């Protein structure tokens, strides 16, 4: 059973303290995800607020036998998209129809391992953060959910509102793109490897 289930049941019954506990328990994860997804702390704050208000409003319809976290990330992703639409941003390249990726990406196998010299780089965190912001938001979301939030494939599929196999395929492509973005930071490595 999800450890949030008893709190969710109390929150559904109108217990404000349970709602506050749930918010405090998940706010860091949601905020961190939104900062990575939107690439902007101020927008992430607005989206975090919207996420929890929407979650609270729809809590009565939530089945507490399910895990709360993937559901929160699903709301967070939608809140972020709505926010960006309102701000008429053009960053949402992943909102375009599927199949617009290049043929190279479509035929991509599992990405090759990362060059070892990359891991010795003192500014690795900066490079990874930079490489992440270069990725389309959908890829960023999958990578953050998988490697930062440590979600299982099923949970990522819920958050991304897509079938598990599709998510795995997106994940493989996202890793390929990330690797390509990181290679320039490993100057001694043979980039063709």
């Amino acid at each position, binding site marked *: 059973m999800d450890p949030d289930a008893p709190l969710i049941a109390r929150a559904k019954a109108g217990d404000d303290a349970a*709602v*506050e506990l749930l*918010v*405090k328990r998940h*706010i*860091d994860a*949601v*905020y*961190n995800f939104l*900062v*990575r997804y939107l690439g902007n*702390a101020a927008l*992430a*704050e607005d989206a*975090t*607020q919207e996420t*929890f*208000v929407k979650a*609270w*409003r729809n809590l009565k319809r939530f089945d507490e036998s399910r895990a709360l976290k993937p559901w929160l990330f699903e709301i967070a992703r939608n809140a972020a998209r709505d926010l960006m639409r309102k701000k008429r941003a053009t960053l949402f390249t992943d909102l375009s129809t599927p199949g617009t990726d290049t043929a190279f990406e479509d035929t991509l196998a*599992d*990405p090759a*391992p*990362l060059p070892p010299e990359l*891991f010795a780089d003192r500014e*690795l*965190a900066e490079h*990874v*953060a930079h490489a*992440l912001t270069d990725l389309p938001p959908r890829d960023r979301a999958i*990578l*953050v959910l*998988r*490697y*930062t939030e440590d979600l299982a494939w099923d949970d990522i599929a819920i958050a991304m509102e897509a079938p598990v196999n599709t998510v795995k395929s997106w994940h493989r492509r996202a*890793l390929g793109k*990330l690797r390509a973005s990181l290679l320039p930071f490993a100057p001694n490595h043979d980039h063709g490897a």
Partner: protein
Amino acid sequence: MGREYEWLFGALPQNSAPAYLCERVFGAMTRERIRILRMRLVFSSCTGVLSLGGFIVAGKALVAAMSASGFLTYASLALTDSSAVLGSSHSFLLSLLESLPGPEVVFSLALLAVFIQSLRVLVVSGIAWAWRTERFA
């Protein structure tokens, strides 16, 4: 392969939510609660007024239908000549039920139920709204 990416992402600093964000979220929830309560107040006021008006009209129609069907005459008999009524209670009750204007009674009772429910929601939402508004202000 997954491990090295886990390690890679582990190098990223974790963005913790600023301390004020929790309060901001709770504030937004309270505002949303107040908005929902205000909507309930408006809606229940409207249904309350409409159902009360409807009940008054339906009540007048019910009284008219009761006198037209002879129900009131039968009912007054129970008060004026109770010994005769008790003597033939079975046939009296049957006549009383037969003369009852069914549709008017059902319609009036339905409007009364809507009015009572609206009043209940109005009182409960009103108290909650006053409490939240006072607490939030």
